[in-house]
């Protein structure tokens, strides 16, 4: 591994000098499978208080995405990965803006819509 590449920062997922061997993928796979099983269990069980299930599912999904980013894509907050990490943060920011922004605006519009029967009355 040349020192120049380390100085310039690493590309995402790059494995300089076998820093993350097969172990990283195995640990990642174990976590990912465990979190997936937990998600499917949470969705089908009556053990968890029903209104809390969506929150639990969201938490498990975010945890699993984190596992994939850390163990498969090898993105970390290490100093030589500042570029990748900032790009990831920006991607997450824009995604959250698009998803939650759309949902907020659409539910607000829906709330302010005239009920269908009122609309039909007006057209008469």
């Amino acid at each position, binding site marked *: 591994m040349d020192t120049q590449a*380390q100085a310039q920062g690493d*590309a995402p997922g*790059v494995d300089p000098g076998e820093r993350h061997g097969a172990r*990283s993928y195995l640990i990642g796979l174990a976590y990912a499978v465990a979190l*997936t099983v937990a998600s499917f269990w949470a969705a089908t069980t009556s053990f968890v208080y029903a209104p809390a299930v969506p929150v639990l599912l969201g938490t498990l999904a975010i945890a699993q995405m984190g596992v994939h980013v850390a163990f498969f894509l090898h993105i970390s907050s290490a*100093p030589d990965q500042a570029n990748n990490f900032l790009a*990831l943060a920006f991607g997450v920011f824009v995604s959250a803006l698009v998803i939650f922004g759309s949902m907020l605006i659409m539910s607000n519009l829906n709330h302010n819509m005239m009920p269908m029967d009122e609309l039909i009355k007006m057209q008469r």
Partner: protein
Amino acid sequence: MSAAGQALTGIPGVPLALRGPAPVRVVAGFGFWLFLLSDIIIFAALFATYSVLSGSTAGGPSAAELFDKRHVFLETMCLLASSATCGFGLLAIQRTDARAMYFWMGITFLLGISFLTMEGREFASMIAAGAGPSHSAFLSAFFTLVGTHGLHVSLGLVWLVVMLLQVATLGFQPMVGRRFFCFALFWHALDIVWIGVFTIVYLGAK
């Protein structure tokens, strides 16, 4: 140079301006990472669409009536396993071990094909039961979101075959290694999108 500056750059005493251009491997990886993030933003738009429209079933079947969780679980396991085997394949490329590379990438391909077959069968049975994309806004959004992910997986498989042919013809050149590496990033990113799909679409079905 300050301590904070050293922590940022890794090598003490060499200012950023004096280090010259970054190696191609780093630039290619970073560029592809930016592409992947923009791809994920496309999926974010499709997820937003699905979330808004998921209740608009127009009298047709709802999400809870349509989906079989066991089927989705198998699909998910295929993708997760393929992500790990893809990683092992990438390690084999770094060791320039052709046999291990063909073995792991072959398994990755088979797992990807099984995922697509299961998804195709699910789509076909839904359309046969009259729950095609033209039936309701919910189903349009469903087929767009899950279909776009499936399209990405199909393109990934085509890319994988092209890369295997490149290793067969060009050997383990740095250029081929870089492309394979970008493929692995693409494959892992698709998995991350799938986590969103199975959580929001299949498990979040009401």
